[in-house]
Structures are given as C-alpha cells and as structure tokens.
C-alpha cells in the first residue's frame, strides 16, 4: 500500500517521523534515520543559547519502558543552523524543527531564528518534564502559558506550527483547544509520561543522574492513544502527530484509528533498532493490504465514537 501522507501541506512518503530527541543531534544522524525508512524527521529540541543537559546515566530501559532525563542538551541556535543546514541540503525527507525555551520571549526569538532555515514545520516543545526544575511547571501544563507560547511563535513565523503537549495534565483537551485558538496548526501528542524513577537496589540510589526521567516506550502507548483519541474527538480538523510507544505497524495503525495523521516513533529504536522505521512501514502496508484498506485516510479516527 501507498503510505504517502500529507500533514499541514507537507508531503511525507510515509507517516513515520522520528520523534524529537531520538537520533537527532546532528543532520547526518537524521539522514541516517531517513535512510532507515522514516518518512520525516524531527530535530532534537533547539534552544536559543547553549543549554547543558543532565549527567549520565540519562537513559535506562527494559522490556516495558525507557526512562530518560537527557535534559535537552543543545549547543544553541548557531550550531543548530550548521547541523540543520547539513540536513537541509539534499533534504531526503521533510524536517520538523523542534524548538524550546525557558521564557516566552525566547520562544518567539528561537521561532524567528529557526525559520531562517526553512524547516517544513516547527514543533514547539513546551512540555519536557526534564527541565521542570528550571522552568517551574512546564509551560505545556498550564493552558494559559502554552497558549501564550503558541501565540508568540505564531507571530514570529509563517511556517506551520505544531505544539507538543504533555500527557501529565488533568485537562489535555482544554489545553489543546487553547493552543489551537492561539494559532497552532497541528498538535504533537504526547511527550513522555510521569516522570518516573528507578532505584538500584545494590546502590540504594535512583539510577538516573537526574533521579527522575520521562517514561516512553510500550508502557505509554495506551496513554498516547487515549490522548490522541480525546483531542481528535474534540478537534477533528486539527491534524495530530501521534507519538508514544509506537513500536509495530499495528501500534501505528492503532494511533491512526484514534485520529493521528503522522506517527512519531522514538523509543522503538531501542526495541527494534533503527530499522524499526522500515519494519513498521512494512507491517502497516501488510495489514492494510490484508484488510482492504487503500489509504490511511480511510481509517483515520475511525475508532472515535461520538
């Protein structure tokens, strides 16, 4: 089956995009992901100025989940312009540039600067649980704040915007509506869950240097599906990048049936290595062929009971 998907006017050869923060440090790395079957890429979250991440260990994983507290390390926009520039020349698939900041003004500034590079889409990451202590509550957890962030980004760029939301809120749909009212073209659901913690019994200490880390991988798929379902039900015309625990073609189809247009794939790289993109795409095609589905639009949001 043809998996071609249009999202905010941009054509993707398949709906699988690597999620922000996974294999996204360099332009070359993102090209490597496309060579392994991704239909598009998301850069790691880019800051205006250099930003130190957390010390190692920043990631632990088992058969159920990954915990990460990378802490959004970044060398700042100048360096990002170099890296992304390398991706943008002979761009093999659309680029979603993820941006983040510690203040609302900085969000505006970084949005404008990143736009000079002409990414296809800008993803506003206001929801990373690992930078909470610096920023207070993540912006994404307060409807008013994330709307303000969206508004300023909207004002400073002409490029389509998707806003990435946290599932760790009590009123996701309300926040989604506020963000769309503030000018978001699409939404990315979800960032990591929790955060969580793992303690090493022998060391008697939390393992992550940051103690806690966002939960991703198979464990969070039901939460991601539920978030996409709820938001798609409330805002059927807003396209969604459904992200969270997608590891197989069946998982990808499930989140599409909940309402996603693109599908973000992150931690699956741990479970199936970088070839997961090709494998997931193949599994999707196979299921669709076996079930008489001719294009993904046919099944998008089909599970939503109104």
């Amino acid at each position, binding site marked *: 089956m043809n998996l071609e998907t249009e999202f905010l006017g941009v054509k993707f050869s398949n709906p699988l995009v690597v999620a922000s923060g996974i294999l996204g440090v*360099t332009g*070359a790395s993102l090209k490597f992901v496309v060579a392994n079957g991704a239909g598009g890429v998301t850069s790691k979250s880019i800051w205006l100025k250099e930003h130190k991440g957390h010390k*190692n260990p920043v990631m632990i994983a088992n058969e159920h989940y990954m915990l990460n507290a990378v802490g959004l*390390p970044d060398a700042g926009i100048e360096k990002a312009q170099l890296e992304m520039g390398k991706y943008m020349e002979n761009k093999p698939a659309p680029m979603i540039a993820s941006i983040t900041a510690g203040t609302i003004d900085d969000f505006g500034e970084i949005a404008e600067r990143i736009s000079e590079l002409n990414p296809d889409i800008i993803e506003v990451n206001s929801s990373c649980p690992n930078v909470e202590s610096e920023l207070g509550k993540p912006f994404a957890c307060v409807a008013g704040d994330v709307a303000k962030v969206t508004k300023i980004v909207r004002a400073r760029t002409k490029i389509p915007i998707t806003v990435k939301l946290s599932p760790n809120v009590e009123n996701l749909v309300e926040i989604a509506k506020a963000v769309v009212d503030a000018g978001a073209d699409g939404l990315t659901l979800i960032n990591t869950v929790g955060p969580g913690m793992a303690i090493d019994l*022998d060391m008697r200490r939390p393992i992550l240097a940051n103690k806690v880390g966002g939960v991703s991988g198979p464990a969070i798929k039901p939460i991601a599906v539920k978030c996409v379902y709820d938001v798609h039900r409330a805002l059927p015309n807003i396209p969604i990048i459904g992200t969270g625990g997608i590891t197989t073609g069946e998982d990808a189809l499930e989140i599409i049936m909940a309402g996603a247009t693109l599908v973000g794939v992150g931690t699956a790289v741990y479970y199936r290595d970088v070839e997961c993109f090709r494998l997931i795409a193949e599994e999707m095609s196979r299921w669709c062929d076996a079930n008489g589905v001719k294009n993904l639009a046919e099944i998008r949001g089909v599970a939503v009971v109104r």
Partner: protein
Amino acid sequence: MRDLSSLPKAFPKALPIKKIIQETDNVKTFVFEYDLGAEPGQFVNMWLPGVDEKPMSVAYCDENEFWVSIFAVGPFSSAMHELKEGDKVGVRGPYGRGFTWKKGEHLVMMAGGYGAAPLYYLTRKAVEDGCTVEFVIGARSKSHVLYTERIEALKNVFLHVATSDGSLGVKGYNTLILEQLIKDAGRGKSFREHCGDDTCEREEVDFASLNRVYACGPELMMKSVAEMCLAGGIESEVSVERYMKCGFGVCGQCSVDGSGKRMCSEGPCMSGADALKIEEFGKYHRDAQGKVHEF
C-alpha cells in the same frame, strides 16, 4: 519486535570490584567477577552514583571475569581511581561492534594510551585462533607504557614499543614501527635491525605478509594507521570513540558526520577504510551538547 532476550541491557548491574591493579601512575585496571560475554572491541558503560557514567572498553573477558583499564584524566576516571576493592560499580553492556579477525592471520596491534588494554584482549582471542601478533605500543615515555608484561607472556606475540622521548624502544610515534613492518613484510630480516628497538628480543622477521592492522588510541594515530594501510593494501580496523550517552543507539550523541552512523552501534570498531569515509574522522568530535571540537 526484537527478541526480548536480545535487547541491549539497559539497566546497570552493580558489581563489586574484585581486584585493582596499578598499571602506571595514571592507569588502573579493575577486575570484576561476572560473565559479561563481551567481544574484543566492545565496551561497557560504568556508573558511579552521584558522579557520572562513562563508556569503557573491555580489556579482558572470560566466563569468570572481565577487566577495564582506566586512564585518570577527569572527574569520572579520577573517581574510579579512588575506589577500593569491594566497592561497587554499576555496569551495563556489552555494547557496540567489536573487532573481527580470521584464524591463523598475521596481525599488528597499534596501541596508544589505554588502547593497549582492548587490543590485549583482542590479541588473546586472536592468538587462541592461531594468529601471530605484532603488538606495537606508543606512549609519551617509558612510565606510560601499559600491559607489556601481559603481552610478553603471550605466545606468538611480539612486543614493539615507541616513546616520544625515547625512554623505551624506538624514539617517536609508533607509526614508525608500523611503517617498517609494512615495508619489511615478507622479507627475512633481523628484527632489531628491522624495528630499531633495542629491547626487542626477537631474532628474525619472516612474515609471509601482514593480514590486518588494528589501531586503538588517539584518533590522529588511528587515522595515520588507516591511511598507511590503505596505501599499503593491508586491511585495518580502528575503534572510533565519540562522546556517548546511551551506548545503545537511541540518543544519537555518537553519530558521525557523513554516514550518520552511531559509534556505539555501527561502531566503535570498523575497517580503517570505513573510518576514512567518516567526514570528521581525525578532524573533530562533538561534546555533550553536540558542539564541535577539533582534534
């Protein structure tokens, strides 16, 4: 889905240090009683709670124990040097692609810094497979030369040393010795004459050919080795170390420019020819924030 049992081990296991061996002023070897199952050239992530977690090459490994040799250069490696036997270290791995060799080959190991440690493990395995090994160590001075006794104790292994100050073996880079080895391969020669190293106890060189050269150490040395081998038509393998976070292919921290390959997964070991195709090989590397630094 990957078979769950083949998932990279991504939770550390706390292991008590069984033994600590002072190798040089700056290098200690740590022995752990644990069946790690690592191949030569693979590495582990070692975790000290409250300090950091860093990749370390496996210097030896069998069903009972494994070793790592650590050069004290900064916060983590110095903290390791302060540990006592019995103290626990978190270990996860093994990670990465190791070195490859064939039975009965004639190999050269080009070691710089702590590179002698992983190449020692490779040598032991290769010798078990009937290989003959020229083990060439390069160091600043005599007091920085590692692992010589262990190497000399191995059969069919011949040690060569070069030091920058000439305090042991040939004076200069160890690539001088490799140059000579390549040149002389196949021609009978007195060894001392061949390598110019007084400490050398071997009477004659008469190798049919050199099959493969391995390099582990400073990247500029490895680059020279890879280039020399390419020019000389000899296979080579190098270990390309980059700043690593996860160690199992997810974060992208260790991706190199050009192919975008991950040094923790498609590397660290690869052919010299592949390494030379890496844009940044021998030129620059990235730090924890992804910022570029020249070598």
